[in-house]
């Protein structure tokens, strides 16, 4: 069977399962502490934002210097 469009279920259904597990562990696992669990999510968002902001900045600098 030819299945060209597998990406969505492969990535969100299988590959990211460990991420869902750890997030559930943070929020449902004991000891519970909503503030710290949210802080963990905040750290993750901050790190991802730093990564993509860096990439955007680099694209911008490349545009100025080499075009």
């Amino acid at each position, binding site marked *: 069977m030819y299945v060209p*469009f597998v*990406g969505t279920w492969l990535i969100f259904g299988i590959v990211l399962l460990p991420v869902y597990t*750890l997030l559930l562990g943070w929020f449902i696992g004991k000891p519970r502490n909503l503030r710290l669990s949210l802080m963990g999510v905040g750290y993750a968002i901050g790190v991802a934002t730093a990564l993509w902001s860096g990439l955007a900045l*680099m694209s911008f600098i490349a545009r100025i210097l080499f075009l």
Partner: protein
Amino acid sequence: MYKERKPFEGHQPFEGSQGRLTHRWRGTLLEVERTRFQTKTENVLRVMTKTSGRFYLLLLFALAVLAWFLYAWSFKLTYGEIVLGLGDWGPGGGVTWGLFIGMFIWWVGIAHGGILVSAAVRLFNMKSLAPVARIAELTALVALVCAVTGILMQLGRLDRVFISITSVLPRAIQHSPLVWDVTIITTYFTLTGTYILLTLRHDIYVLRQRLPRLLSPLYRLLTIGYEPEEDEKVERMVWWMALGLIILAPLLLHGGVIPWLFALLPAMPGFFGPVMGPVFLSLAIVSAFGVVTVIAYIFRRVHKWQDVFPDSTFAALARAMMFSALLVLWLQLQLNVTGVYAPPIGVGRVTVAKLESVGYWLGIGPIAASFIYLALQSLFPRLFSVGRTAVAGLLVVLAVLVEKTLFIAEGLMLPGFLLYEEGHYFPSWVEISGVLGTVFIVVLYFTVIVKLIPVIEVRVLEEK
């Protein structure tokens, strides 16, 4: 020679008549233990607070190499892809990917293996490797940056990278392994960064009075909202992260999404096949153990950290490297036997070309040699040497880079539908400068970071 020493071996007279330590001697031993902890902590803090001329010299040298790296990159951006040792298939007589993509897989493998070391320490309480756990985490983070640099250097229009990715997300995740790769690298970088930030909170708080005052704004930011009561919950959160990462990194990233960039291409017999996941993973793990060994050895030599990174840590790293090297060799055997015994035409051509290539033996030979030495060292402990273990680690790391680059170039050189003569490839000075530059990004990173944060967890320094 390595010998696992028990603490206070040979001090039996200290014991009382019932085989227990007398109160007086127990007090003395506790005092000695406290002194050991203080000495190890002092050793780490000394490096953070005192700076010698050699530090500035290394900093200058690393910056000079990075300046060269930026020059090479700007040269490529100015004059275009023509300056690389690459070319089109067919009439172009070349291959479209080479050292940069090989370097990408190499660094991303080191990153995935690095966090594996740390997660294994946390989940399975592997005390011998605990001293190098944070170094492995920090290596994972910078190795990902270096891996992404490999991709960015390969791109012709750097200015379009951000818009070209964001414009297709998340739609193209449906069908593009490249977009899977971007998604997963982002996830992995995010998790690794979060993991390090969470584990740093306690350590920075405990040592805050002793850390450089100049950096106090950074430490305030890193410990924002910290309360000593949070340690139990944060430790549990980090445990959950370790559990997630130990499945995500080896099985689904370096044994999954990264090899799928290649293993899903039936037109390229050198890339295609279900065994590519395990092959990639084995090389990633062995190179990560190699890098951690080399970095720990350099720290031990330069900062005189024999007590922080004891012989037992290197013995554990050597054993881990030995088993992962064996795994590499076993999987190569699988590839080669299936490639030479009645294979499909394309697979047969690729395997023969690989086995006849000097590059392949330059890649696999040092891994085999390191395995033999590490196995002998394991069988005959008198052969153990920290220095030689580090050399074995370095050999393995360099060998994996060669193997990965050859995998890319030969995989493209020998497509299944060959219409023209085989292409040729040799890395250009720009590509070699790119690899050198990423290595010195790591050098600069560790030179600086050892001044900013404790590179060994305080709980490890406290352990007996």
